[in-house]
């Protein structure tokens, strides 16, 4: 073909209008070729999962894998299923990030999830979770203490159906340096006033030694501590009521007036908080049960008298600490629904729950079967759990249907107050308005 011929061919170039018409037509044809129902309900990106009904995928935090692996052989032998463990997120916020988009598009790569209180109500109300009411035998539900009832109804249920079954019980324990208290002839503070007095006695801010501390960094951790104090003052933290104001003012006073609580805690996470305590810089503090294992793991530092668990200082409503935890759920889009239900039934049964608890302290709960299995054994967390239950310390976790968003409001409001951006009155007003805006 000579150059003249080429010119003849390409000089008839298409117009922009023709090009756009052709392109649009082709793309429209490609869209029309897609399965209409799937396209309309799930969007254009809806990859079909390869389903293998012989495999059940369980997503749970990795530190719990060994304990679960230990009980799986019997399950796999009796059902012929293979359980595959995947690392799950460590917080409710991360659960929403990881699974929210997937569930919203009608897909799930896992069959069973270990789910947190912060996000589970949202997933349940969105219709992403399969009901467990007919799956879990009554014998298993009866194994939980009666005090769990209201919490299970609020955080695990919706419209008369149960969607999640607890496998973890977490309450903020009050850890104290008994050796410090004894050396000064002091007792563990039993009230807020005593906490301030003991704090003043033991704090030495110039040398970075504090009466008490906590992790107050956003997101979520500041909420945990404000809700803890509000439980003690007898309020509803999501209502931003007078007791919430009292709790916020008490926290503010501990930081700025009494100087027994480091201001730097506002940028402190749990790792930093634990490090401060184990650096002999804190006399008493609230922390989740996992701190017991962390502290015991530091064998060079640990001694029982450095880590006594006492009842929390009482506010107007008494000695209280809210409890919550994680539980198993089955996504509605689980590739192996039947296998998932079998697995969840097995892991929460009265025979297997104690074995999980023996394998990993995260699974220790006040279930009858677990308490029976641990009877006569020395376990600091379990002993404290019994003492807290006997003293009526456990308080219901504050509930809101939009719990993650409500917690963010508390985080934002408290953070502004504690960094002197808002007055207490404006903080309470801001919180009430933002919670009201959430509706429901």
């Amino acid at each position, binding site marked *: 073909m000579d150059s003249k011929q080429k010119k003849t061919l390409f000089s008839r170039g298409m117009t922009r209008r023709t090009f756009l018409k052709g392109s649009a037509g082709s793309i429209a044809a490609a869209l029309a070729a897609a399965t209409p129902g799937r396209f309309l309900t799930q969007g254009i990106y809806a990859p079909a999962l390869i389903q293998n009904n012989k495999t059940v995928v369980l997503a749970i935090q990795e530190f719990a894998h060994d304990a679960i692996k230990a009980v799986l052989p019997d399950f796999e032998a009796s059902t012929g299923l293979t359980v595959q463990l995947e690392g799950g997120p460590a917080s409710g916020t991360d659960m929403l990030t990881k699974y929210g988009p997937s569930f919203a598009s009608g897909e799930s790569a896992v069959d069973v999830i270990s789910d947190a209180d912060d996000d589970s109500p949202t997933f349940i109300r969105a219709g992403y979770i399969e009901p467990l009411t007919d799956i879990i035998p009554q014998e298993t539900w009866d194994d939980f203490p009666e005090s769990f009832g209201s919490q299970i109804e609020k955080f695990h249920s919706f419209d008369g159906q149960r969607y999640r079954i607890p496998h973890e019980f977490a309450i903020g324990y009050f850890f104290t340096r008994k050796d410090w208290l004894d050396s000064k002839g002091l007792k563990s503070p039993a009230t807020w006033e005593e906490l301030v007095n003991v704090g003043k006695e033991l704090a030495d801010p110039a040398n970075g030694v504090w009466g008490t501390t906590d992790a107050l960094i956003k997101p979520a951790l500041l909420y945990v501590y404000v809700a803890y104090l509000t439980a003690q003052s007898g309020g509803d933290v999501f209502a931003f009521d007078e007791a919430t104001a009292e709790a916020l003012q008490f926290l503010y006073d501990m930081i700025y007036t009494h100087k027994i609580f480091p201001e730097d805690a506002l940028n402190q996470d749990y790792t930093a908080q634990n490090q401060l305590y184990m650096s002999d810089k804190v006399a008493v503090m609230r922390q989740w049960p996992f701190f017991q294992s962390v502290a015991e793991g530091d064998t060079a530092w640990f001694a029982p008298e450095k880590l006594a668990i006492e009842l929390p200082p009482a506010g107007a409503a008494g000695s209280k600490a809210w409890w919550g935890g994680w539980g198993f759920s089955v996504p509605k889009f689980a590739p192996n629904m039947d296998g998932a239900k079998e697995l969840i039934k097995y892991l929460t049964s009265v025979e297997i729950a104690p074995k999980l608890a023996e394998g990993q302290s995260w699974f220790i709960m006040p279930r009858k079967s677990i308490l029976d299995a641990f009877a006569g054994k020395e376990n600091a967390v379990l002993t404290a759990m019994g003492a807290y239950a006997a003293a009526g310390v456990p308080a219901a976790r504050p509930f809101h249907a939009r719990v993650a*968003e409500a917690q963010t409001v508390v985080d934002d409001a408290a953070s502004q107050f504690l960094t002197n951006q808002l007055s207490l009155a404006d903080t309470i007003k801001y919180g009430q308005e933002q919670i009201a805006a959430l509706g429901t």
Partner: protein
Amino acid sequence: MSTLSRTPARKSFKGLTFRQRTYVVAVILLIPALALRVFTAFYPFVQTAYLSLHRFNPAFDGATGPVFVGLGNFQRIANDPVVRASIGFTLTFVVVATFLQITLGLAVAHLLDAPFRFRGLSRTLVLVPWAIPMVIVALGFRWMFDDQFGMIPDLLRHVGLEMKWLINPTNAKIAVISVAVWKSTPFVALVLLAGLQGISQDLYEAARVDGANWFTSLRYITIPMVMPIIITTSMFMVVWQLAVFDLPFLMTGGGPGFSTTVIAQKIYLESNSLNYGYAASIGMVLVAIVAIVGAIGLYLFRRFDVSE
């Protein structure tokens, strides 16, 4: 006249004329690129625009589906203190960070353009901050600014400056912007260095003969000559940093309060709570801001004849 051109238009293979076949082949060849743009830009944009006019949270509107609220979401944005603050901080972050990155980048580029020993090694080392992943930078600086354990407050204490960084709203903003400047200035410097190397030394020689000093050479030769690159780089940095998320989120969590919350973080928080309608409307606000900035950029492009 060749045989082909003398042949009258005839029906070719599959009943298409030659001209029609040309169109079909052109369209087929372009479909992959077009489909990519449609599925990754056009469709998401249309879907976001649609959702921004609706209230939709699958957890609470699952039964009804998206509920049309008109401009209700935008009205809510106007009254939402977190969104207002996040827009304010995002714009502050972008403007201040970009200005400092360009200014310092030009200074660093000048230094790297000067002849000295180990110039090649210096140019490589300067790029190190830019090469570190942002997640590592954010977490590293979070510890370095930590008021209890951090080296920056400790060093400042030694010179008599007692400052709380990440728990003071103003200082937290300064800290986040400083880290962004530290991280991206090397990239800007590298781009501007390429521009400086394109300026003929004859211009400086002639200016020197005419009595120009260092500053007048900078004012009347260097800056005008690299202005197109400055504008292009500024636009790139502005648009890129308008969508910043990782640095402030990991360094401060958006706090204290919501003083360092950026627009992208607010979108993340809302979509994480399945508030897809409201998140989409905040996203549209971000699109509007980017569009305005883009329009300004186009104006500047034309004014400084960047295309020539």
